[in-house]
């Protein structure tokens, strides 16, 4: 029995608890009516935020290895990415199915007229493609193409942060208004992407090895 439990690393337990907790707490709050006076919007926005957090976490895995030498995050990337996809799907379902009541003409109009919606949908489709090809079988089938496909997550990350910023009453161009959270997430994303540039990555891991050998 105990040997079975030990098959999960602490990181795995944290990830899976964090993966399901927002869903259960939200369901609980829906049932108890404790989600502001505007619960549909509250749920919709929260699901989107949680998806964003998991996306950032999945994008943080490689930089964590670079900076710390701790290799486990690489193995957890897929789970984090799939939780990001799960919450993105729920976010989309609440938006289309509940907020707009599957009013397809209205949804089509929104998507064609509002860049904010189109960006969200684009990122969602990228997540979908990555999620269904996330299994080992696909990795083997696609070979080099798999890696190229999965690199579109960087693009999706940028799109999602813009989508998040556009949801706020703020001006992205002048960085004024309710911009602080999208700005912080954007800076974090930029750091995570920069740490993948080979030169920077070698510098960072070289620095780490030097520090370790001191």
């Amino acid at each position, binding site marked *: 029995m105990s040997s079975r439990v030990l098959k999960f690393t602490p990181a795995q337990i944290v990830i899976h608890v964090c993966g399901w907790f927002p869903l259960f707490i939200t369901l609980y709050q829906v049932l108890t009516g404790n989600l*502001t*006076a*505007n619960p*549909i*919007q509250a749920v919709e926005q929260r699901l989107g935020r949680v998806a964003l957090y998991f996306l950032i976490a999945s994008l943080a895995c490689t930089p964590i290895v670079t900076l710390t030498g701790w290799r486990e995050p690489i193995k957890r990337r897929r789970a984090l990415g799939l939780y990001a996809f799960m919450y993105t799907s729920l976010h989309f379902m609440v938006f289309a199915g509940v*907020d*707009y*009541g599957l009013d397809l003409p*209205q949804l089509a*109009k*929104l998507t064609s*007229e*509002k*860049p*904010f919606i189109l960006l969200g949908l684009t990122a969602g489709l990228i997540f979908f493609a990555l999620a269904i090809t996330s299994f080992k079988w696909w990795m083997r089938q696609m070979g080099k193409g798999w890696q190229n496909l999965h690199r579109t997550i960087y693009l999706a990350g940028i799109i999602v942060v813009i989508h998040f910023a*556009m949801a706020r*009453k*703020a*001006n992205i161009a*002048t*960085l*004024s*208004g*309710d*911009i*602080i959270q999208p700005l912080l997430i954007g800076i974090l994303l930029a750091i995570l992407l920069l740490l993948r540039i080979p030169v920077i990555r070698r510098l960072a891991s070289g620095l780490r090895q030097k520090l370790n050998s001191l």
Partner: protein
Amino acid sequence: MENKLNSIKPASSEITPESIYFSRRDFLKTMGFVSAGVLLAACGPRKSTPVSTASDKSESASTEVPIFDEFGDPANSFQEITNYNNYYEFSTNKQAVARLSSEFKARPWTIEVRGLVNKPGIFEISDLLKFEQKERIYRMRCVEAWSMVIPWKGFELGDLLDKVEPQTSAKYVAFTTLLDEDQFPGQGSNFYPWPYSEGLRLDEAMHRLTILATGLYGKDLPNQNGAPLRLVVPWKYGFKSIKAITRISLVENKPPTMWNTIAPREYGFYSNVNPIVDHPRWSQTSERRIGEYGRRETMMFNGYETEVASLYSSMDLSLNY
């Protein structure tokens, strides 16, 4: 679409004539606001704050005289109106504003009226309460595409302006919120051009639907709703209805306003509720009435078209958004 419109607009025979909805306040007055108070009890038993006196009176409060707007839609509950507030001086979290504003000092309070007027002055809030206080049941349409029906108490801004006698050169009215970072933690953020400012054209300000609200549901205005005094312009998006006003200036030129300064392409000076002239990022064609499951079609001028359209008859509303 046709069906949805019908569900919003009742047959014309069902629409309360305006004269009656304006006089509902008299009815409420004669009831001593008992009905409103009892209604509050139904909404707020979980909150101990402003409803405690009424809360013991009735168990079956939901059957008491409800309040409706002229389309027959019920007013939102006191609980909803006081726990879902856009008030960035306290927080961008609408649910947190009630708690964060609980210590706000709305008394003593003075409002300076200055600029192009013959009789400028500094008014105590108690002076302003001497203007005839009226009950106005208004729809509030937020630019975020949600809406409420709110039974305000207040006086017509025109009453105050008449008293200070605007000069003929005065064309606009500028409003300013209190600047006090100790009381308004949000004003510590450098991302906004504090203090909050708003403006109206003089004829908009003089319109009888434009009020300075001093209360809601017959009670003093709660802090989270802009105590002690806020503007309410029901045909404009909610952000025009500036809260905690300390200064009113009559000016010749169009004054700067906060959201217009932040994002001029998105928040026009006029900001009339308009489902046709769309916000560049978000759709303004529909809205969710707080407490309802589906969305409603948004109405031109938020349903006040017959009263206010003449103010804009010579204007292109797609340019003057």
